Every structure is written in structure tokens, then in C-alpha cells.
């Protein structure tokens, strides 16, 4: 099993969700997060004083899939979330040891 963890621009969430639904992904966890990468933050101004906003709002999507589906899932995310401008985000693919469905005690790939 693989954890596909994607950090994307918030306004891209709907498109990414639809792209994932199209390839048969049935569930995901979404978190509002803040952060920066190479694009750094930006400058804002309030009542005459400038200040930098380092942490920009992003959305983090977490999906656990079968090993075979990992590449297909990350491809779908990258395609849907791309604007071609700085700050588009990143996708990480991480190995998962086990998964358990709380309701039924199923574990392993059956729990997904």
C-alpha cells in the first residue's frame, strides 16, 4: 500500500477531487494547511506598513491506495492541480505498513 500525499493550491481541490473520482478513488482526507516552498511568500500592506506573508494557504490531500494504483493516482493529481505557475505544490508517495477499518476490523488492502 502507498500513501499519496499531495499539497496543492486550494482552488484546485474540486478539479483534483473529480479527477480522482474518475479513476475510481473512493475516499480521501483533506486538510487546510499553510506553507511555502521555493516561491516563498508574498508582501502585503496594511495601513501603510508592509509585511511578508511566508505561509500561504494550501490544501493537503491524503489517499492510501494499492501499490498498483499509486502511479495512476499521483498522475491524476499532478494533471488536475497543474497551473504551470510557482506554488502549484508537490506530491509525495510513501510506503504504508498496514491499514485497519475500525468498523469491521478488516486489515491490509481489504480495509481500503
Amino acid at each position: 500500500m502507498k500513501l499519496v500525499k499531495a499539497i496543492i493550491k486550494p482552488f484546485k481541490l474540486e478539479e483534483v477531487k473529480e479527477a480522482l473520482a474518475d479513476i475510481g478513488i473512493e475516499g480521501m482526507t483533506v486538510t487546510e494547511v499553510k506553507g511555502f516552498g521555493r516561491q516563498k511568500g508574498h508582501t502585503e500592506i496594511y495601513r501603510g506598513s508592509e509585511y511578508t506573508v511566508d505561509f500561504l494557504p494550501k490544501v493537503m490531500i491524503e489517499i492510501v491506495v494499492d501499490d498498483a494504483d499509486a502511479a495512476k493516482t499521483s498522475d491524476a493529481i499532478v494533471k488536475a492541480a497543474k497551473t504551470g505557475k510557482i506554488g502549484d505544490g508537490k506530491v509525495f508517495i510513501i510506503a504504508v505498513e498496514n491499514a485497519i477499518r475500525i468498523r469491521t476490523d478488516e486489515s491490509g488492502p481489504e480495509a481500503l
Partner: protein
Amino acid sequence: MKIKKTLLALLLGSSAFLFAGSLGAQELPVIETAEVVEAVADAISFEDGYAAFMETPGAAFFTISNLWLLIAAALVFIMHLGFATVESGLGQAKNTVNILFKNVFIICMGILTYALCGFNAMYPGDAWSIGGFFAMGSWFDVTASVDLMTSEYADYTWYTDFIFQAMFAATAATIVSGAVAERVKLSSFMIFATLLVMFAYPITGSWQWGGGWLSEAGFYDFAGSSLVHAFGGFAALACVMVLGPRAGKYINGQIRPILGHSMPLATIGVFLLFLGWFGFNGGSVLNADPFLVSLVFVTTALAAAAGGLGAMFTSWLFLKKPDLSMALNGILAGLVGITAGADSIMPFYAILTGLIAGILVVFSIIFFDKVKIDDPVGAISVHGVCGIFGTLAVALFSDAAGFDIQLIGTLSVSAFAFIFSFVVFSILKVVMGVRVSPEEEAEGLDIGEHGQEAYPDFGSARTR
């Protein structure tokens, strides 16, 4: 009633003269006649005298004027909602309950203390303690009489006079509330605000509107650029100097802006203040004179609009971006600026007054920030600086008063407010402290002072 009295005087006077003449006396002193007239007039019950007055042709204008002043009083009341939302919006979410609580307290306390002694201290009539400078004041209520409830008194009743002025009175403390927001200790602020509204505001008010020394000297302040706004603004300046800036505002010589949490709330507040100002200035005509009330509405609106545009473009030109909070301050600056001369500065010059105030307020806010006077809402600049400018604008753009007396008047009122506030707030600082602890300031005054949250269902406030 005047006609009635004159008739009575004639009747009594002539009969007294006849009576006296028959006794061989040459003449009766006029004063005695007047006293007799008063005595007879008093003997008529209030109900009868009032009913008789309401039958006279003058009763129609009196009734309309009185009603207009009551509507104006209600509009000034709405300004307190405007102050509450402006201050909340320009403060951080964690201090919202505290800011609203102070505003709720001020209007309640303001009306009651004005009844207790403020009204009679500000309008002492002949009851000065030190002629033209100071009156002790007393409980406002009176026995209803024709003298106080008909046009014998004014174009409005005694009660209308009280409630209109009472709505003004609390404004001074509200101005301070915005400037000291987000770090002032609640109990100390409540004591200070009470002393300010109960004692200090009526003193400077009596100098002009109560017929005191400034009014004798020819000072002109139509609706209170000095008496209300500069007074509040300089009281605020003194308090901020005693209190110090919010933690984290000035670090290593750099200004770190602390963002207001709701621009929609701040904008609603400014629109409410704009609305209320029609009552603040329009009611200050003190009757329903069609020419003057309409002129005042026009000059008030023109100055506010010019102030808004002035601040918009000043911030755009000099601060790189068109800043909404500056535009909002600009509208208020224009309103404060025109307040002293709303009935005497003609429309073209009203625009000029508002425009200058709107430009002035942006530079003033930047200046106070540079010298580390931390004023979250810009109250010192809007009310203090533009209050002084508006008072001087009367001399510059109308012939209602000369420049010298306007300068002397506005500086006297501002200096009194500043010194009173500096002394009282410093004493409070020594005796009980005026600032919350650094921990409480960091956590927010809502939890620290009130154990409550303004937005318990939103965001991080729920993660416990």
C-alpha cells in the same frame, strides 16, 4: 404662551398702575410687575398652559423641530453601533468580546452619568461654580412647566435637549476605547471612561455650548469638531502614551502591522457612522429650519465623500496600494472635519474641508505609527487631528469666526482633555494598573477578561 404672558402683563400692569395711582404712588417698579406676572403664570397648571401653547400657530414648528431633534438623537445613538463595529473589525478576533463589552458599557454609563450631573454641568444656566469655566452640575430632571416644555424654552423641550446631548456625551469615551483597544485593563478603562464622561466632557462643553468663556470670546464649534472629537482624540492620545503600544507592534525599530480581523465589520461601522452623522450635524441646527437642516445634510455628505476619496487616492499614491481601512478613516475624517462648520461652510468649501481632512488623516496615521503611538483604529488622527483641522476650517472657509479664537478654542479643549486624561490615567496606572498581563494580551482579552469567545464555532477556537 408669549402672547398670553404679554396680555397678562398688560392687564396686571395697568391694573396695578391704577391701583397704585389711587394710593398716590407715582410709579410701580417694573421688576415687581414681572414678578407678579411670573406668579400668575405659575398659578396656571402645566396641563392648561401646555394645552394653550399647543393651540398657538407656533406649536406646529415647535412640534416638527422637537420631533426632528428626537430623530437626530436616535441617529446619534446608532453611531455607537458604528463605533462598536469599526473597533471590532479593526481589532483581532481574540479581543472582539472585550471591545464590544466596552462599547456596551460606555453607552449605558454615558446616558446615566449625563442624567446624574453631566447635563446640568454642561448647560449650567446661571448655576456656574466658577463663572464661565466650571459648574458642578446636578440631577437633570425638572418639574414639567410651560417654561421648559414649550417654545418658551427652545424649539424643543427640556427632555429632548437632555436626550440629544446625552447621546453625544458618551461619544468622547468611545473614541478613547478604540485607541486603547487590545491591551487595556477593563476595570481601569471603565473607571477612566466614567470620570471622563461625567466630569471632563461637561467642563469643556460648558465653555462653549453652555455659554462659558469660549462662547463669550466668539469661538465657533457648530456640532463639536473640538468639543466632542478633538476632546476624545486628545484624551485617546494621552491614554495611549501612558499605556504603550500593543505587544509585537514595534520590533527592532520596525513596524509590524497587526491586522484587523473583519473588514466587513469595519465597513458596516463606517456606513453606520456616516448615517448617524446626519443626526449629529443635522440635529445640531437645534430646530427644523428647512434651509439650515438641508444645507447641513449637504455639507456633511459632501465632506464625507471628499474625505473618502482623498484618503483613497492618498493611500494609493503614497502607500502603493488603495487601502480600504484608510478609505474608511478618510470618510470619518471628512465628517469630523466638517462638524464644526457644517452650517456655515458652503458646499464647495465643504468638499475642500473634507478632502484636506481625508489627505491629512492618512499622513497623520503614518506619523503616529512612526513615533510608536499605537492606535489600532486611527482614532487619534481621525478625531484629534481632524477635529482641530475642522475647527480651524471654520475660520478658513467661512466667516463664522476668526482664526485666532478658533485656534485658542480648539487648543484649549484639546489640552484640557489631554492633561485630564494623562493625569487620571497615570494615577490609575500607579494605583491599579491600566494594562493586562503579557500572557493575557497574547491569549486575547476575550478569554482573559471575560472568559468568553466571540466566535466559538470557528477555526482554532474549537480545537481544545
